[in-house]
């Protein structure tokens, strides 16, 4: 697929611009280098590519006509929301159209009685909760990027947040996605009831990284704001103890509103940035939140505290008011930008593992820090085993970038080896595509491709992302094979 695009006539650009200008006003079709440059990467800035053309539709009808035109000209299309993605999902195609949904940023309807909001894909995640706040409602999934990321991007990545342990991921909080196929046809997945006839394609479209259809309108569920929330900040002298404590809380039948962990290097980096007053001597900090009615929270905090104490926490602080709660959270929420201050670049991984393997994986990461000579602070969603190790490096040094990629690759493979997945919430994109060859069998990858073709016969929507070709896997396998041995023959297939 990719090869045929590479051979396209460069005059394609002129043809594409002409076709798009017949649909969109001229300021909504960008093709000069200085105009397309801002779109060259998403949040994974180590990978860059200038798009051939950028199209900025304003409504559903324009999206549909643009897609139809792209199909006619056989142009690959990469949808883009806010460009905060961390796996290169919105990385442009050099011979294709970058379809920015940024102009479609209106909240179309908000019904506080039905507790739903119907929004355009470019609406920012936090804007929905802001609009719902006067009614005591909010949109639950809260990625740390929520002030910037778009709901269309959230749908495409099935994003989570620190509260998704209790309130679910995007897939659990979206009722309906209206989307446009590459043929320019509008299709509704789900509806404003709790289910829809036919196969549950709403679930299939969630997390599909812009490869099946372009979301043009999304109905989200709004849920009542809990009356109150309090968080426990627990300190541990050992990372593994903290990991086990997280598992113990869950084992006690408690589903905290949030259960997050930071190791010492991460704590030190964020403390410098937010001044939350964290204990810098702790090997790990655990944030464990309870929400609900005041009585309920009091009961639950007592139960949580008992479990954490039994699990070896040496210090506790329980937020006494909302300001303090937000202060305790501030460091965890700002972990990524804080890394940006102590290192020119950081590379965020996203493997998710069974909680009981946490200690083992953390030791493995520490060994990799030594092996590759790179620092790697850890923050993670401890409650659901979703790790975000952050490799610190300098992208201007190609040698460091190479080491970073190798480091990251080993951690992803370790995640698979312990029975987890290469990505919990950031998506495969371009970044983890090779490891897909390890996580899935050739038959499974073939089925993924068939699923794509069921929506997009010509494979024009975000091609070459997420699902590797078997050819690519063969190449990757060759690189990996040592002494005639397949890599990780012991890998469990699940």
């Amino acid at each position, binding site marked *: 697929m990719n090869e045929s695009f590479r051979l396209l006539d460069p005059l394609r650009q002129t043809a594409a611009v002409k076709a798009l200008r017949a649909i969109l006003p001229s300021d909504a079709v960008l093709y000069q280098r200085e105009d397309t440059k801002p779109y060259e990467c998403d949040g994974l800035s180590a990978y860059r590519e200038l798009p051939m053309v950028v199209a900025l539709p304003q409504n559903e009808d324009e999206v549909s006509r643009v897609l139809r035109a792209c199909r006619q000209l056989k142009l690959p299309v990469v949808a883009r929301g806010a460009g905060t993605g961390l796996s290169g999902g919105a990385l442009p195609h050099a011979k294709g159209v970058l379809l920015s949904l940024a102009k479609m940023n209106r909240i179309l309807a908000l019904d506080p009685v039905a507790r739903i909001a119907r929004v355009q894909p470019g609406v920012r995640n936090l804007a929905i909760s802001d609009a719902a706040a006067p009614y005591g*409602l909010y949109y639950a999934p809260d990625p740390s990027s929520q002030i910037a990321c778009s709901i269309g991007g959230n749908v495409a990545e099935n994003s989570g947040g620190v509260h998704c342990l209790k309130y679910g991921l995007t897939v659990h909080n979206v009722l309906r996605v209206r989307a446009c196929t590459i043929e320019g046809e509008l299709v509704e997945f789900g509806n404003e009831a709790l289910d829809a006839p036919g196969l549950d394609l709403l679930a299939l479209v969630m997390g599909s990284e812009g490869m099946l259809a372009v979301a043009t309108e999304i109905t989200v569920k709004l849920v009542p704001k809990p009356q109150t929330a309090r968080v426990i900040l627990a300190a541990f002298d050992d990372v593994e103890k903290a990991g086990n404590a997280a598992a113990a809380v869950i084992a006690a039948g408690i589903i905290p509103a949030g259960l997050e962990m930071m190791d010492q290097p991460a704590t030190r980096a964020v403390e410098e940035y937010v001044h939350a007053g964290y204990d810098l001597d702790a090997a790990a900090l655990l944030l464990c939140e309870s929400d609900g009615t005041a009585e309920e929270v009091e009961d639950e905090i007592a139960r949580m505290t008992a479990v954490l104490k039994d699990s070896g926490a040496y210090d506790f602080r329980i937020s006494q008011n909302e300001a303090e709660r937000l202060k305790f959270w501030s460091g965890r929420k700002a972990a990524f930008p804080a890394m940006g201050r102590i290192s020119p670049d950081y590379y965020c991984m996203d493997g998710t593992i069974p909680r009981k393997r946490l200690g083992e994986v953390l030791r493995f990461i520490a060994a990799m820090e030594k092996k590759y000579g790179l620092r790697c602070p850890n923050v993670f969603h401890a409650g659901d085993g979703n790790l975000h190790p952050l490799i610190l490096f300098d992208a201007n040094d190609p040698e460091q970038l190479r080491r970073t990629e190798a480091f990251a690759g080993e951690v992803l493979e370790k995640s698979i080896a312990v029975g987890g997945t290469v990505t919990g919430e950031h998506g495969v994109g371009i970044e983890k595509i090779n490891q897909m060859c390890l996580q899935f069998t050739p038959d499974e990858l073939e089925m993924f491709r068939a699923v794509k073709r069921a929506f997009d016969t010509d494979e024009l929507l975000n091609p070459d992302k997420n699902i590797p070709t078997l050819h690519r896997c063969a190449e990757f396998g060759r690189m990996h094979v040592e002494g005639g041995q397949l890599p990780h023959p012991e890998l469990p297939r699940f």
Partner: protein
Amino acid sequence: MEQVIARYAGQIRSAAADKKPLRLRGGGTKDFYGQGLEGELLDTRAYTGIVAYEPTELVITARCGTPLAELEAVLRAEGQQLAFEPPHFGAGATVGGMVAAGLSGPRRQAAGAVRDFVLVVRMLDGRGDDLSFGGQVMKNVAGYDVSRPMAGSLGTLGLILEVSLKVPPLPFAEATLKLELPQDKALAMLNHWGGKPLPISACAWTGGELVLRLSGAPSAIEAARAAIGGEPIAAEQATAYWRGIREHTDPFFSTDKPLWRMSVPSVAPPLEFPGEQLIEWGGSLRWLACKADARSIREAAAQAGGHGTLFRAADKSAGVFTPLQPALAKIHRNLKQAFDPAGIFNPGRMYSDL
């Protein structure tokens, strides 16, 4: 057990070669559901047993033929549950059938549906290939999410071999209340309460009586009781009542009229049809025992923003499921082709062309 899989795969391959339909079936408790049953029987009960259960990971993996009752008993012993409270509709219900039917019970309004708890599906496709999708962890976005759509697929895409489900803890406490309310007031109150942080985990309105179940911390239940009022129902009686709603053994369901399952937005006004109604899921699910013609019922559902399923009826000629929009129907056909190129799995159970 691997031999059983090999046998199933063989049966699938030869059916595909001969283009002869297969009828995937567990306990047969949901034979009544869906359009016609066609093809040679493939009994999933031979592949049975719990593969793995780790309470602290909140995940259980079971083979398709495992009795649903067995799975639930194992979970209960560890203080966990299938939070979507699936109906069994008979003693022989299996785990595979529960997922394939995709039906959820009273707690769905608070906890989510079957699909929300599916983490991994291992399946045999129409080529007899053994495939696994999803991840044994709480979060996984590697590849397309092929596992959740298996919930409710009615066996049209493949034979579900194993499924891993997320299994949350049982609530610390429960209480059931009864209030007298006419339908419009009941709907208004359900939507009003839905917007408040109240621990309502189930509701059922019929014949002017609204029954509510509260689940959670004792203190939260107490506070909700004070806010809602109503008359408490004793625990044992309440358990039996909710079982009746879930299993359709409540007197409401012993009707000889066609039973419609109307899935509509919770704020949809009362549906104006003759016959009896039972409302669940905060107003989003309305059971209609009604002889009106299918067309007008489906139109009313569509007008309200939902859809109507002819859930139980002697005569299904009006079609069980609401027809799909053409663009959506095309994607369905393409997916069917991808999973089951010979068209052998439960043909016509969902739609005549699937």
